[in-house]
């Protein structure tokens, strides 16, 4: 499949990152808590979402969709935006631990009303970063030497 750069699908609930991450400045990891511990960043469960708006804006039509999902017991089916092929292994937690900012790969999500794939997310793009990071951090106190081994991602 070709590059999915620019992919910007509609979502079942018109959730705005620009509002939550931008204006309200909620930390990315508050909702995508898996990014620190797991290979998947994860999408928060509906009950986590309800923690906030339940208190704030109960009657907004988009939030009603959320409470309806919880009431009916039907999970929300978000459309996946970023997707690496099955033959490439990727682990969020290693990148978060290496202090790679979310925006490096996902773009300025805090400005997006609807999330869009900004980068190409091809192998060459991964390798660009893996090759240059070591050079950039060579003088820094904490040296990061990302691997360029084939088998690190393909095994």
């Amino acid at each position, binding site marked *: 499949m070709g590059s999915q750069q620019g992919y910007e699908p509609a979502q079942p609930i018109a959730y705005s990152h620009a509002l939550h991450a931008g204006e309200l400045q909620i930390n990315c990891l508050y909702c995508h808590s898996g990014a620190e511990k797991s290979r998947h960043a994860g999408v928060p469960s509906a009950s986590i979402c309800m923690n906030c708006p339940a208190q704030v804006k109960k009657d907004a039509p988009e939030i009603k969709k959320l409470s309806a999902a919880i009431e009916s*017991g039907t*999970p929300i089916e978000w459309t996946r935006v970023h*997707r690496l092929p099955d033959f490439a292994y990727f682990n969020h937690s290693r990148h978060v631990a290496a202090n790679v900012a979310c925006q490096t790969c996902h773009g300025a999500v805090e400005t997006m009303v609807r999330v869009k794939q900004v980068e190409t997310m091809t192998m060459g793009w991964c390798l660009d970063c893996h090759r240059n990071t070591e050079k950039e951090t060579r003088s820094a106190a904490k040296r990061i030497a990302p691997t360029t081994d084939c088998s690190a991602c393909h095994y």
Partner: protein
Amino acid sequence: MSLLDKDKYWQCADEHVNEDEHDHVHGYDHERDNPPPASVNRRSFFKIMGLSTAAVAAAGCKRAPVAKIVPYLTKPEEVTPGEALWYASTCGACSAACGILLKTRDGRPIKVEGNEKHPASRGGVCAMGQASVLSLYDAARARGPLAAGKATTWAELDAAVKAGFARAAASGKSIRVVTPPVVGPTADATIAAFLAAFPTAKRVTFDALPYEEAIADAHAATHGARVVPAYNFGGAKVVVSVGADFLGTWVSPVAFTRDYAKARDPEGVRPMLRHIQIESTMSLAGANADRRYSVAPSDEIPVLAALARRVLERSDVAGKDTLLAAVAKIGPAKFDARSLDAVAKEILARRTEALVVSGSTDVRAQTLVNIINYALGTTVVSSARPLHRLAAALSFAEFLAELKAGSVGAVLLCGVNPVYAHPDGAEIAKALRGIPLVVSTNDRVDETASAAAYLAPSHHFLESWGDAATALTALSLSQPAVTPLFDTRGTWESLLAWAGRSSAYYDFMRARWEKEVFPVAADAGASFQAFWDRSVHDGVAALKEAPEAALPFRIDETQKALEGIGASPAVGGVEVALYAKVGMRDGALANNGWLQELPDPISKATWGNYAAMSPALAKKQGLAEGAGVTVSFGDRKVTLPVLIQQGTHENVVALALGYGRTRAGKVGNGVGANAFALARVDAGRVQLCRPGAAISATGAVEPLALTQTHHSQEKRALVREATARPASCRVTPRTTSRPSARTRSGAAARCTGFASTVILKDRPKTRASFSNR
């Protein structure tokens, strides 16, 4: 000219005999089957490449398919998507009950590993344990309770079954609960609770591979306790196994392999354990032995008697003369007397550190083993702290007699499949159909369950609570690692429900642990809750070491147990040896594709069984590998392809059990033939060897799916031969054909194939590092 000395290394017998290294033996020839493409020149290469690149580019214009992310509505606290969760549990695929760790992802068990905290298996699991996770997802499992083959609800089934039991009780007819002999202490307690609720009920045990029962019954005679003793292979200095494949299938193979491997570590601090195997079929244990003798199955009892006589004569134990007199009545062995002397000499040299075991299903053979171990005064077998204590129960033979007499009103079959795994299976099915109430808790409508009116399908063991005893020094615990996939209910939960107990099995088990396990637990701590949580977390709970007095050896009873064995009857024909195969055993997991696909460690055969025979017998019968043969005793017959297996006794045809299922499911049905049909029933007991078989060729040829000649060297020197020297070790790849004194036996070479890429000619005294020059 090949690259390695054919006298030393070869992958199959033909390769050994015919000079050339070839793949053709099993129908595959690399050069013939992979012809180079008809001359590709530079131009046509680019043409092909151009086409495929264009195809990729065209495909690249498309969008990837839309994928969804469906998060939890409310996420369970311990789950992080993408991270595996591990649960400690106990393998339920055989009575050995090894400790396992179960990897689950998103609430689904995906991988079984060994639990290092388990005192017996110490991190090991066998192929069946590994593959058991696939059986959890087996599509042939029953989806819910059935009444007369139609779906019903648990409430309806319970009402009908309870009414049936009440009717049987009221009419004074008996109720019989048929279970495997070893089910775990809490399950035993559940059965006791059920029996208490119905005065006419009794437990019957059915063991498809009845050697554990034979061992226990021999101990009942010799030691007055129906136990399978604890065997300490790690503490022994010499092991003599007469037909027991203790590394592959016998009693507790994983734990024994652990002990054995440690005791045979060439770099260990103690002298290596010496191992002598006397057997009729090539087994995993036999392939590892220092000395291997082949014996006809009918000669096993005379061989054990001859060993017993030699050992008794050189010892001064109480009752020596009585035992000698009893043993002397057994006819002479056909086995070479000089070899017997040699074996006797080895065990007598080690006495208390010698261990003799037998894989026989004959109680008399096991009694002879007990006599030998008693006369040696061995300390590496313990019946006081046994591996399993078998509950008092009716034997299956007694049960069959009752069935035929019509005194049984209700039968409850708990995870047993005698219609398949008994030579008189068809008769049993017929007898069961005449019983007013037959309930089965098997996990599918198998051979036996299809003769039952009601199916109350049990959980897979990965969905259930349970426990198992490990040599009475620890209890191993099972916990569900997944919510039951189907509308099933654990066997013991059903038993409690039918006994009128309102508690769930989990509560029953916890209450029993609080009352009976907590007080005897080693470092139990103050609170039961903490102890329970820790036990569930670890999968095991150690028990206090209570010193137990050794059980006295009972001379008179032993003598009685040996009565009636004369000289082995002279029956003509070939002897049939039925054996449990690594990865299939009694065939309960026959519908597991991984196990069917698993090459047998000895024959390297996959998918199905075969008639294994020695090259000599095959030659005598004029049979080649793959030729169809019918092995028969009167009208009992089994037709299978021939597999030529070095190491098989010259007059033996060996057939693996566990194949030829008819109602296991899509994968297992009709794979191989059911060799249980050929088992002998002797005074009600099923015996897995039988002399006097007729063999006839069918004329058909069926190629066997063997992996033995896979991974040929393709005429490259992949296997390097070297001499490892201590310390400054240099390894020189050598491809010459220098004859060596350390020629491996043909049989062993067949079973190991080329497993490693460096062959050490001498055992290194220290760990050596290798450099290839």
